């Protein structure tokens, strides 16, 4: 009887090993070559607003066993110790109006009055900076330290989270106001009275539009 019980247990174990999702050996490739790449682009962008953002990236690392036996899923945290880290991240975003394709079609003159129809404003992430002195980490004695690869992965995820938060920060409204504030003194110097100057944008932007107004280099970088 005891032998039969052992055999059944062995059979269950063997069936557990038959993993459905076979983990194929992955070869990781970085999308960069280990050399300097320089790209120079001639532009004509008027930056009107600068936003300084702050985020504390936190990570709580617990090892656990997850699986499925007898059609029952389970999740057990392993008592091998925790690893925690908090990384303060400062980011600078700027709103700009691109004048590269600005033509006389963007200007309407009627007597002493002038109306300037500006291209859509855009938002770009110009820099991010880790406050290395303020990074706090706790690693249990049974665990290994955070690797450089893990740290850069958390920082990259924090950067992506900032980009995702952009539409909720009402940046475009302020950027439009500041574009007018910057351009009105410029046009006044050309001899127009302030009350004769009108600065308009193509349209009112909703949340979906704002996602499209995030500079593509910022989003590419976030991937």
């Amino acid at each position, binding site marked *: 009887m005891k032998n039969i019980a052992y055999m059944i247990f062995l059979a269950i174990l063997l069936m557990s090993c038959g993993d459905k999702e076979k983990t194929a050996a992955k070869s990781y490739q970085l999308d960069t070559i280990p050399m300097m790449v*320089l790209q120079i*682009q001639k532009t004509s962008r008027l930056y009107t607003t600068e936003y300084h953002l702050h985020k504390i990236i936190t990570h709580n690392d617990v090892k656990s066993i997850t699986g499925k036996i007898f059609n029952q899923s389970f999740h057990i945290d392993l008592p091998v110790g925790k690893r925690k880290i908090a990384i303060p991240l400062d980011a600078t975003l700027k709103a700009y109006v691109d004048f590269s394709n600005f033509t006389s079609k963007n200007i309407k003159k009627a007597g002493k009055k002038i109306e300037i129809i500006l291209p859509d404003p855009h938002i770009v992430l110009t820099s991010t900076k880790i406050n290395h002195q303020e990074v706090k980490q706790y690693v249990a004695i049974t665990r290994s330290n955070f690797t*450089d690869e893990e740290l850069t992965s958390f920082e990259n995820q924090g950067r992506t989270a900032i980009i995702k938060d952009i539409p909720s920060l009402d940046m475009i409204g302020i950027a439009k106001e500041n574009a007018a504030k910057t351009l009105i003194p410029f046009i006044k110097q*050309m001899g127009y009275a302030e009350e004769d100057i009108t600065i308009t944008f193509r349209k009112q932007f909703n949340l979906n539009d704002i996602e499209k107004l995030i500079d593509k280099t910022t989003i590419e970088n976030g991937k």
Partner: protein
Amino acid sequence: MENKTLRYLKYFFSHSSKTFWLLPTTLLTISILLIISLYLLNKDNSITISQNKNIEITPTQIRSIEDIGEWEFLAISDEELVDTLRKGFFGDSELVRIYYGTLRLGINLREAQPGWIRAGQDTIVATLPPIKLLDKDFIDEAKTRSFYESGSWNEQAREQLYQKAYNAMLRRCMTPSNIKSAQENAGRQFYHLLTSMGYDHVKIRFQNR
């Protein structure tokens, strides 16, 4: 011989009771059913040791909003491979990272002198502030890639690597030719902008540094 075997079999089947056959048949059926049910229950079994690799959800705070007036005429995207080496008794430790940054060259309209634009009937003269680096912080550090690591490194070492990448990007991008290129583009863009506004004669000058 053959007839003898057949006779023996006939005798055996006619004289063996039904109960005699019932026991092995039942045992065989139960075993098959047990194997099938065990297979069905365990076919999706899996056990994995998992580790959380994602960050937690934390708020993004706006520290400040500034009204600026910077006109960019040249954007230089750069990536720098920087490394640091530490010699040790048991072997050397090395950390190699790739940093990304964009240096933006242009003018700050706040630095324009009063009367920097003088307009006549069909003539306009614009005296632009000198071309400069618009952002002091131009490295996208959160986009940095770890290329190679051996040994353990602290945050101070990472800060030093950042400074090394910063200086390398400045040296590589803030060259007289790039500044000249930005200045030429500034002249072209302002000329285009002012002619679009209806001026026939446009003169663009730059303030002295």
